[in-house]
């Protein structure tokens, strides 16, 4: 098969959308936090915690959707920790974020070891199965790619629509965007900046955790150490790439996932002449290029990373 022909096969796009799904959840989560003015670098750890929490719930006998809910709650709790430190206490968002990532990751591994002390290879669960949408999934390439996915992927796309609607069409979305741009505008209109920011960080963190859970409950069927593997950091870049807009960030996530799916297929074709690391590197190199081209013009939320203290002189 020719390298270009890959781009027109349904299986390639099915894989791309599947790879994109966890990124979409987590990117939306990060986007909500940043729109409210909080950079959430806890994303990598929160995704790890979500991946474990969802998977373990199912392993312990819960059903799949309960697992998703538990993952979201675990994420919201780490979000609460992050928000308490960064919003009312106004601590450095960089330091707190890295701290939350380290804490969430090691706490997850610790609980894993406590819960499964004897295991050498992690147990498997029965993950979400593809749910082809009748009719639509028969449309060649595009239909197959989009409509023969698992329910969790459909939820990812739905999340983008909901986030966009909430941010641009509802009063609470208005308050979130204003809190990230000029918190004193929120305060002057009688709304608590602290409440808006903390709420945004908790909801955003819940979405990140669901993104992590996608990996253990839909893409794969088990929990491994290091399985998030930098996806959280990619999502931070995707938010910038998307200029803090849900639709653009979605395109970014799919683009990155497509690069990733493509490089796997190129690896198989190259026959081992080119070292495989070169292909692994490709999506990241292309992301940097895309950032240079797109994100230089991005206008970021003006109050991003600036703590707001009421009544401060």
């Amino acid at each position, binding site marked *: 098969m020719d390298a270009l022909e890959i781009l027109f096969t349904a299986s390639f796009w099915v894989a791309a959308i599947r790879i994109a799904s966890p990124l979409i959840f987590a990117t939306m989560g990060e986007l909500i936090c940043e729109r409210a003015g909080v950079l959430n670098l806890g994303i990598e750890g929160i995704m790890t915690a979500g991946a474990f929490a969802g998977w373990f719930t199912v392993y312990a006998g819960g059903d799949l959707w309960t697992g998703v809910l538990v993952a979201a709650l675990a994420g919201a709790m780490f979000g609460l920790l992050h928000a308490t430190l960064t919003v009312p206490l106004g601590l450095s968002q960089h330091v707190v974020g890295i701290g939350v990532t380290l804490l969430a990751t090691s706490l997850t591994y610790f609980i894993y070891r406590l819960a499964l002390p004897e295991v050498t290879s992690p147990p498997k669960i029965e993950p979400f199965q593809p749910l082809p949408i009748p009719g639509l999934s028969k449309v060649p390439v595009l239909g197959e790619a989009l409509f023969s996915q698992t329910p969790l992927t459909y939820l990812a796309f739905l999340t983008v629509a909901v986030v966009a609607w909430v941010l641009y069409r*509802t009063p609470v*979305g208005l308050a979130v965007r*204003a809190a990230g741009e000029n918190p004193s505008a929120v305060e002057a*209109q*009688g709304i608590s900046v602290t409440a808006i920011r903390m709420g945004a960080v908790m909801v955003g963190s819940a979405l990140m955790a669901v993104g992590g859970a996608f990996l253990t409950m839909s893409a794969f069927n088990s929990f491994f150490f290091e399985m998030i593997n930098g996806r959280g950091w990619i999502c931070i870049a995707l938010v910038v790439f998307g200029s803090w807009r849900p639709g653009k960030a979605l395109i970014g996530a799919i683009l990155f996932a497509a690069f990733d799916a493509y490089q796997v297929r190129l690896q198989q074709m190259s026959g081992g002449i080119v070292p495989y690391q070169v292909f692994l590197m490709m999506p990241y190199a292309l992301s940097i290029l895309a950032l240079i081209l797109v994100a230089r013009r991005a206008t970021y939320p003006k109050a991003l990373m600036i703590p707001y203290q009421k009544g401060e002189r």
Partner: protein
Amino acid sequence: MSVTPAPIVNVTSNPVLRLSGITKRFGRLVANDAISFELKRGEVIALLGENGAGKTTLMNILFGHYVADEGTVEAFGKPLPPGDPRAALDAGIGMVHQHFTLADNMTVLENIVLGTQSLWQVRLDRAAARQRIEQLSADFGLTVDPAATVSTLSVGERQRVEILKALYRDAHVLILDEPTAVLTPAETDALFRTLRLLVAIGLSIIFISHKLHEVMAVSDRVLVLRAGRLAGERETKATDRKELAALMVGQEVKPAEVSPANVGAPLLVLDRVSTARHNGAGLDEVSLILSAGEITGLAGVSGNGQAALAALMSGTQRPTGGRLSIAGQAVGDWSPRAALGHGIARIPEDRHAVGTIGDMSVMENVIAERYGSDRFSRMGFLDWKAARAFAEEIIADYDVKCPSPEARIRLLSGGNMQKLILGRALDPEPAVILASQPTRGLDVGAVAYVHRMLLAARERGAAVLLISEDLEEILALSDRIVVMSKGRLSAPSSRGERTIRELGELMAGHGGEGQAA
């Protein structure tokens, strides 16, 4: 006019607002000391005072941004819970802050409706909001496009959005904190017309200012604050500017006396100079001569090229065309260091962002322009003794109120900061002085001081370029006036030659298309 009067509670004799014994301390500083007053329906109170007198603090307490240490606020006969802006808004108090509280990335409409609809409804009702905003705009002369993004608006438009925000919430009391500081004379007139319309339908207004002529023009009653205390209360009809100034400062203020100019040789000559854009327009073939012993006043609405001219003269911007010569010699290489080397002293427009480095000490700031000179360094090492001596000299000579030369400069008031900048700029006896909005935001006492220093430099034979948006200041100090509009310069006029009206027309871009000779 189709004004529907706001449904105001039946209070004919009762005050709409009563402040009793408000006291607020920040550490050892007493910002408000037992202040009490009442506001009646349909009344305009002016709150007059120098910077740091406690005006803004008092209003922030009223609005719930700060909590008072003592005292109570009553609105329409009911006590207002402290520290809750929502309660103030619900009681019908609207505030137009000095630093606008608008989100730049959102539209006018979004900024206005923020917080007026329940946060948990699934859809923002834009249509009804838009209609109401347009009605209010039309009724009160507050023209602004509801769909425009705030970042694209002028300062005057932003202020109108702020007023609309309050009216949209049915405010019965409107607090305006230094509303004219950022407006052109025409915009100020329009604001005053709006305020009169609002009073006519029964709103009460608190107007905070340190500009006497505005207070006289707009208020019914004047409260004067000095150092946190209520220094006096006067009916506007029964007082005059002189008395108010004396109350405000605590003593009589003498305006700077101007002797006839003794004009010498041209020191800095711009010959058809053009530049790139800088905070608005760039220069478009501008010719200007600054001569020794003369103050040249540059009037204009901000954004018309004044910033570009200031940047050019301070060396931060290079000409893209034309010739710049100093003391008869064409300038080749141009940089901030070259400008300083040629004896150009700079008093920058934004003393916080450009004039000083807030978190560095007074001592470090005063040597910032010359730390490499022999006076302040030896073999590459800073001479802190000399720096401290210089800082102490300026503090003594210019009567700067500051805790010590080690204090971080951002803790100083605007007036004291400006005195330090003046001291730094004038110490080497510069040949040319660029004074950009040198008195913006300063109180009466500090303004008079800055004026005296500029006049003294002129007596000494310096060429001064005074860039100001305050026409009164331009008229009082300038020996020659030029007006800038869209990057071009009007022909100069000598003292008293053009009226305020004629200058205003030139500022608006009408009038003669002349170039300075």
